[in-house]
Every structure is written in C-alpha cells, then in structure tokens.
C-alpha cells in the first residue's frame, strides 16, 4: 500500500516534470513575457565577451546578443548576460537557464546531434594555430617534432593537436593548462616551446605581450573551428529567429546597410533586397512572430557584421584580426547570407 503510494507520487512527479519539459516549447513567448533575453556568454574572452570597468559587457559575441534582443524585444539593453564556463555552457542552454548561447562555441557533429543543440550559423570562422618565440628558429608547424606545447585541457584544441601530430608522424610533450591566462604565463615563463589555441586567441595574446615582435604565429591552421550561436533542439521558430538575426547582420554588410545610413535606406532605398530586409516591403518578420522592423532594429544596435567586427576584434582594435575567412563571399571569404525573400 505504502509502496504503491510512493510509486504513485513518483509517477505524478515524473509526469509533472515531463509536462514541464514539453511546456518549454515557446521560447519567443517566454522571452517576451520575461522582457529580458538570457544570453549565455563567455566568462571573459578578449574581444568576444568581457565586461568593462563599469560592468558593461562588450565584444563580438555580446554584439550578437544585443542584436537579437533588439530584434525580439525592441531594446538592445534588455539582455541578461549569463557567464558560462566551458563545463556549464551546454547544460545551461538545455536546462533553459539561457535562451541562446553566444559563447564562441565550435559547431561540431556531436554537439549538434548528441547534445541536442541547434547551431544557427557561424559568426566567426576560426582555426587552431601555434605561436612560438622567434629565436626558436621555427617557421612551420611541421618543424615542431618533439616540442613541448601548452594546451588547454578539455577543449577541441586538445584533440586537434593530437590528431595533427599523429597525422604528421611527430611527437610532442603536452603542458596542460587551465585557462588562457595560465597558458600565456607558462609560455612566457618558457615552460613550453609553443602555445596552441584558436588563431583569434593567439593574435590577441600576442598583441598583449610586451614584445610582440619576438613571437610569431605559425602559418599552419590545423583545424576548422566554426564558432556560432546555438539554441536548444525542439523550438524551431526560436531557432529561426536566432538564425535570421545573424543572417540579417551579414546580409546588411553585403547590401551596404550600415548603422549610419539605415534610416535613410529604409525610407528611400529602391533595392528590393534591402526593402525586404528592413521591412519596408513584404512583412518577413511576421512569418516568425516578430514585427516588420525586427532586422532594422538588430542592425541599428552596433551596425552590420562588418561594423561589429571592426569595432570589437578588427584591425583597428588592439587585437587586430584580419577579416580572412570572415570576409563576405564577394570578398573571398565564407560569409554568405541566405536570401531574404
């Protein structure tokens, strides 16, 4: 009798829990009701997400959060930045603590399928590289046989490194580190010959050295690291909103829509592509539950993709990343926004 009561209550609880899971369907509605977008960001990565002295978050990934908030809620400041670590990021997303994860996460097969995430696109094409001291006399990663290499544990970079050295029949001695700051410190102290991480991270690290001229980043990029925002499986409409907000930023650059000329273009542009993007003709926003000017608001926050890039990590910033793969397809890069129609 008692046992059955226990089982009964467990069943009820389980049903309630599964009901709760199922009810989690409509993220757009939830975000609108809450009035705030919960955006998972890095706890701190130079150029991508970092708070300034006043606690305001800025950076490349943060700009995407702001654009999404502007598109959905009409106000780019209505974002709650939830700092996530490498360990907590995906669980935070799948448990519903955050609505979207914009945390320089690599899009991989296993994350897309097994972890039940939907990567909505790529906002930065990165790749893993090596940095060495110039006086080591190495000019190619192929010459790193037997080197000690500082490598962050628990990341895809660790696996890429092993693959690369195996494929090239070389050996290496790993020096395990826990964070970027520790890696820099170990590398500067001479604990390792080479430091490996994403090329964007290497560039930022090198730029912050006292003597950047004494260090070189080797030309080989040994992996593909397409970084992009991700949402949960199962809410396709929310996934669409996240995806097309990203595309809107990319497309805006392609069509020459900037934060400076957007108001003028939305009134006077004769280009049908621009008109559809900015909501002056065809109400595209309605198809995913937003108003007509969603993309206009998103672009207005910090400009189009190119403007965001230039302001946060581009060549004018101390980090000084070149566009490279992240240029528009018309400029020889990989950015290729799907048509707005």
């Amino acid at each position, binding site marked *: 009798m008692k046992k059955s009561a226990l089982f009964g209550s467990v069943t009820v609880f389980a049903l309630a*829990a599964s009901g*709760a899971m199922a009810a989690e369907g409509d993220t757009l509605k939830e975000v609108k009701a809450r009035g705030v977008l919960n955006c998972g960001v890095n*706890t701190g990565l130079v150029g991508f997400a970092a*708070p300034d*002295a006043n606690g305001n978050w800025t950076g490349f990934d943060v700009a995407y959060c702001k654009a999404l908030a502007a598109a959905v809620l009409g106000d780019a400041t209505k974002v709650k930045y939830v*700092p996530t670590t490498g360990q*907590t990021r995906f669980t*935070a997303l799948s*448990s519903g603590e955050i609505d979207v994860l914009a945390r320089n996460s690599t899009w991989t097969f296993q994350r897309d399928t097994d972890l039940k995430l939907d990567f909505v696109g790529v906002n930065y094409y990165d790749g893993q590289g090596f940095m060495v001291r110039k006086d080591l006399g190495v000019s190619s990663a192929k010459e790193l046989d037997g080197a000690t290499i500082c490598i962050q544990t628990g990341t895809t970079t660790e696996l890429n490194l092993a693959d690369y050295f195996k494929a090239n029949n070389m050996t290496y001695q790993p020096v395990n580190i826990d964070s970027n*700051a520790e890696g820099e410190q170990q590398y500067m102290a001479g604990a390792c010959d080479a430091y490996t991480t994403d090329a964007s991270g290497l560039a930022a690290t090198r730029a912050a050295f006292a003597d950047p001229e004494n260090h070189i980043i080797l030309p080989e990029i040994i992996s593909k690291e397409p970084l992009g925002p991700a949402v949960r499986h199962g809410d396709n409409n929310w996934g669409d909103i996240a995806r097309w907000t990203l595309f809107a930023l990319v497309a805006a650059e392609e069509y020459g829509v900037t934060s400076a000329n957007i108001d003028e273009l939305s009134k006077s542009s004769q280009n049908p592509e621009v008109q559809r993007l900015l909501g002056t003709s065809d109400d595209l926003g309605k198809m995913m539950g937003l108003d007509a000017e969603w993309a206009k608001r998103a672009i207005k926050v910090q400009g189009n993709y190119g403007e965001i890039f230039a302001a946060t990590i581009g060549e004018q910033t101390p980090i000084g990343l070149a566009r490279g793969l992240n240029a528009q397809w018309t400029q020889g890069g990989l950015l290729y926004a799907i048509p707005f129609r």
Partner: protein
Amino acid sequence: MSNPDPRSVAFVRKTMLPPEPPPARASGAVLWLRENLFSGPLNILLTLIGLGILWLIFSTLWPWLSNSVWNAESMADCRKIIAAAHGPDASGACFAIIKHRWNQFVFGFYPSDLYWRPVLAFGTLFLALAPVLFADSPKARRIVTGLAVALTFVISAVLGATVVELGGMAILMLAWVYLIETRTGPVVLASLIYPFFAVWLLWGGTIWEPAMALAGFVLGFVVWRALSAYGMFAFAAAVVVAAFWWLALSDIVSRGIATVLPMRLAPVSSDQFGGFVLSITIGVSGIALSLPLGVILALARRSDLPIIKIMAVIFIEFIRGVPLITLLFVASLLLNYFLPPGTNFDIILRVIIMVTLFASAYMAEVIRGGLAALPKGQYEAADALGLDYWKAQRLIILPQALKISIPGIVSTFIGMFKDTTLVVFVGLFDPLKAMSDTIRASFEWKGAYWEPYIFVGSIFFILCFGMSRYSMYLERRLKRDHR
C-alpha cells in the same frame, strides 16, 4: 701581631665581585645562532642552503615588487612606466590593475551608486555579532563596534552615498550601539533579525519579503510555544504552520502590504553579485547556518532513536563522500531540469544551501568529536540533576563540547570560506579566478597574471587569519580547567 706581612694573611673578600657578562661566544645573538643554526656540520649546511633559498626568492621577487606601478590605465602603460623608470629590461608588478578595477574585485557588478548597501550590510554584521562574539569583554566589544560604525560610515561616504543615506545609516548604527551598550534582551533579538535585514540591503526590493519570511519563523515559534506541552508534536505543528505560511500566504501578504507601504530599495539581482561581496555573502551565510545544522546533526548521530541516527549517518556520509563541486553543479544545473520552467530559484540561494549542507556535515563530525571527548560523568551528572534531554544538552553538554571543538569548528569555517571560490565553476564571479580572468579578458589588462592572485590571496589571508586569531582568543577566554 700587628702589621703582619701581607703575604702571610689569607685573602678574604668582603664584597661580591660585580657579575661578569658571560663570554661573548656563549650569550646573546651569537649563542642563539650557534645553538639554533650552526650547532653541527649538518645544521650549518642546512642553514646555508636555507639562506640561499631565501636569497633566491628575495632577489627574484624584490625588484619585481619594488618596481611596481600603481597608477596606469593599461598593461602597456605599466610597461612603459617601468621601462622609463628602471630601464628597458626591468620587470615590475602592475598593481594598477587592482587600483583600476578594485570595484569589480570587491563588488563585482553591483551598481556603483548602491555600494553603500553591501558596506552597511557587512558593517552591521559586526554589530550583530559583537554581543555574541565578545559576550564577556566589554572593552573588546566596544573597540569592534566603534571601529565597525566609524569604518562603515567613512567608507560609505567615500563611495558616494547620499546625505540621506548616510544620515539613516548613522541613526541606525548609533541606535544599535546604544542598544548593545544598555540592554541585553533586545540586542539578541536585533542579532536574530539581522540576517533578514542584510538580505534586504543586499538584494533590495521591498522590505516586506524578508519581513514575511521572518514572520514565518515567528509564527512557527509561537505555535511551538503554545503547544509545547505536546512535545515532538508541537515541533511538527510549528514546521507545518511555518511552511504553509511561506508557501501559501507570505507572498500575498507581503505584496499586499507593499502596495500600501512599499519601503523599497532598488532591487539588485544575483547575477550582479561578484568579487568579495559574493564570497563574503556565501561564506557568512554558510558559516551562520552550518553551525546550528552541524550541532543538530551531531546530536542526531549520537541519538538513541535508530531512525534519526540512521538518517544523520546517511546524510553526513553522503555529503562528505561527494566533492563540493559536484554539489554546486547539482545546484546550478541539475535543479533546473526538475524545477518547472520559469521558476526563479535564485542561484546564490542555491549555492548557499549546498555550501551550508556541505559544511554542516563536516561541522557535525567536528562537534561529535567534542561530544565524545566529554567524560561520561557529565552526562550522568546532568541526568542526576533531573534535566531533560534538551536542557542537559543546552546547559551542560554542548557548552563544554563546543568549547573543546573550537579549533576544529573554526578550521571548518576557514576551509568553507575559502571553498566559496569554487563557485567559479557554476558561472558566479568569485574574486580569485572568475573575476580575475574576466578582468584580464578586457584587452587593457591582458597579461597581468600574478597581481590579481596576490591581491585576492592577501585579502583572503587577512580574513582567514582574523578568524583564526579570534578562535585563539576565544579558547583563552573559555579556559576554565587545567589551570
């Protein structure tokens, strides 16, 4: 007989010679050195090696520390200043990062115009604790309360509290000090109310929410007293009534009163907490809650009632067998799956609960050690006096057992306080790693590695050393036997 030959008379001294100092080699510093450092070939060798190591540390660290820069806007700035002052190859510490971002190390992302609130909360913490900590030493108590009041006021003024806020603060603190100095009854009450007051200060919102939470305790207490003739039943009834109040009524009532009389402070959400405010909030709550919980668990584990004993053993052994990080992950991630979506179960509250449970399991074992150390005669004496279980524990057993356990209790406190830095793993901004890494993530301070660690480590050392010194003071105070 007169005028004898002086050589024939034995010399007899009438007065004492003044004492000679011992030979130079057998006294003072030389003796100490010889006895302690150079007493044999092995010790001479060890001394020389030790001196060598000391010199090595000093000669590496000293230039770095003495070249340190406190005024700069970025790492590059720092390097320029050091190079200009000490030559291009000189290295130096760049403590400017601390000066530039001290507010984030201390307050995290707490709104800067509200800094006075955590300051007041932690200042009044000493007012709440002083009557308890320095019960029989008015002098020490006055020094602590005086310092707390003065520092809180000055720091708040420096941090830009408005005149109204400062005035309210001054009135509150002086009234409290007056209470401490004149009446003992209401002071205990004030100390009991303090946690709810601090929660209101730290998180803001309307005062009625913490007030209604407090009302639940009062309600439970009243029910318990009214039914106290029924023993355990009274306790159960009190718990049920309090729980009913919290779950069903308190929200409605607090909202109702708030519409009439808001008493609101600007709300601050948990994700704006960080740095030492976060560490101290979690640490102090954990310390305050884990001690009573630990006492109850320790008593439960020594109980004669099998079910209570078994439950206590299972709880303690389970919690002690699981790493704290696991518990934190459960609190931050797993709970989200079970709670219905949209439930806002505050992350800091979740972490405090887990940290408290973790510390209380250790605390229980420390206190059980104290209980076990008491001679059996004490228990029998209590029984012989006709005291019931709770009276015997309260009046005879626990005061002695807790006194024996003080070193263990305080070291559990210290350990727990330092463990609060582990909240970095659930995305909270502890001062040691999360806050430092976050500050390094802005380009201007990228590359500052040791400085934040040294700064945060020193503050932790000061706080933990303070706790340790207090425990030694308490031990001396309570030393009643073996004199």
